[in-house]
């Protein structure tokens, strides 16, 4: 803007552009061309969105040969920004010596950031591909070990992705 407040254009508009109607018609042609281009909507629930392995869905506990990998160290619980994880450790006769007798994630608090997965020393908690979560009460939203355990076959994609990129 110059000092007297008038707008300086780099190139003044042609007479056809000033009338504005031909410009409108050019725009209308573009708009009508868009009508016939493909649409990007998924007809959910008939067509689901299948995410890539790098997608951060809900956190799940990895189950190897029927036993969870988790040693109940409590690191995920400490690092969680929204205090969603609660771990209670106990002794076991297996080689790993510790196991979580109570492992609860409050899904209403979980923000799907993936810090728990990043900090876990045993690769025992990973972000799966599930994003369809429905609960009808706050009590129902607290996921215990029964809903959190998933076997390594189901989590192949994510474990492979972590192997490559960590």
């Amino acid at each position: 803007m110059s000092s007297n407040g008038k707008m300086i254009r780099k190139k003044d508009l042609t007479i056809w552009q000033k009338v504005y109607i031909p410009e409108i018609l050019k725009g209308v042609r573009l708009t009508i061309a868009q009508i016939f281009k493909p649409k990007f909507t998924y007809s959910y629930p008939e067509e689901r969105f299948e995410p890539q392995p790098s997608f951060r869905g809900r956190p799940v506990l990895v189950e190897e040969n029927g036993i969870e990998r988790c040693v109940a160290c409590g690191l995920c619980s400490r690092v969680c920004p929204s205090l969603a994880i609660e771990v209670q450790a106990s002794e076991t006769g297996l080689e790993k010596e510790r196991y979580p007798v109570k492992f609860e994630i409050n899904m209403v608090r979980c923000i799907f950031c993936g810090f728990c997965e990043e900090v876990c020393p045993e690769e025992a908690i990973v972000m799966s591909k599930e994003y369809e979560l429905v609960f009808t009460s706050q009590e129902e939203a607290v996921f215990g070990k029964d809903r959190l355990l998933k076997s390594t076959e189901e989590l192949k994609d994510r474990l492979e992705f972590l192997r490559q990129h960590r």
Partner: protein
Amino acid sequence: METLFLVAVIKFVLYVAVVLVAVILVGWIERRLSAFIQNRLGPNRVGPYGSLQILIDVVKLLLKEDIVPKNAYKPVHDLAPIISIAVALSTFAVVPIGNTIELFGHEVKLMIASVDVGILYMLSMTSLGVYGVTLAGWSSNNKYSLLGGLRSSAQMISYELSMGLSVIGVLMISGTLRLDQIVVHQARYLGGWLPAWNIFLQPVAFITFLVAAFAETNRLPFDLPEAEPELVAGYHTEYTGLKFGLFMLAEYSNVFTACAVITTLFLGGWHLPYVENLGLTALALSILQVLTFCVKVTLVLLFFIVVRWTIPRFRYDQLMNLGWKVMLPLALANVLVTGFVLLLI
């Protein structure tokens, strides 16, 4: 006399049904077409291809709580949407859908009222529509609503002038104010082959009237009164439930009426060229003409919707500038030139 009364009642009921169905149709076409332009599907679950979505939306609005702000002036707050919807629905009464038909030995005109002042009735009704908007903005006790209402009324009043003046050119050619006579007058041929539609005889008036129609119905690029980023929701911010639904219905109804009036005045109404020589029966011809009217109105409506997603919104000073400094002189010049040419011929 009994037959005439019965005919009048039937026409009235049919017209009300037609307007309400037309409003639903306008809403459906707008939502689906807008979605397609934006590379997405619109509503497609309710009814075939989503056609009943507007109906369900109205039902949803009916079930919502009616909230009136504490310091709002309740009588006027309740009255404003009623004015809007009453005016919007009644403007359509003078638009002829088809040619005069012979029914039971009487001549039946396919419009509710062939008043002597046809087009003036429509212009005055749109002037009354300003009341609905202004009262809504004022009575809400909300500075954004007030600004939206004032802006909208200023915009509508400014563009009514150019709308009226652009119609004068059409009136000079047709020599009558009655809309059905204007359409009959356009059912001629110039030079033997060109239909004498007013868009060919009065192109400047057509453009002026089109732009003014966009401004009257608060449609982009002139939709500053309802611009969400600027005025929250403009004059209907404080309205919930059915009252808000009435404003939406009134807006769609205004769009439909504007398209119908543009078709009647400039595009030849129900006239389909070269079809009289085919020798069809009177009934088939009537049906064809009504269908032609519908197709023409739909085309103008598509233009309205596509332009909405093409042009950026006008700023308020640009809007008033256009209305007073460009459209008004253009319409006046059109009247001058038309009068001059008519004197020479």
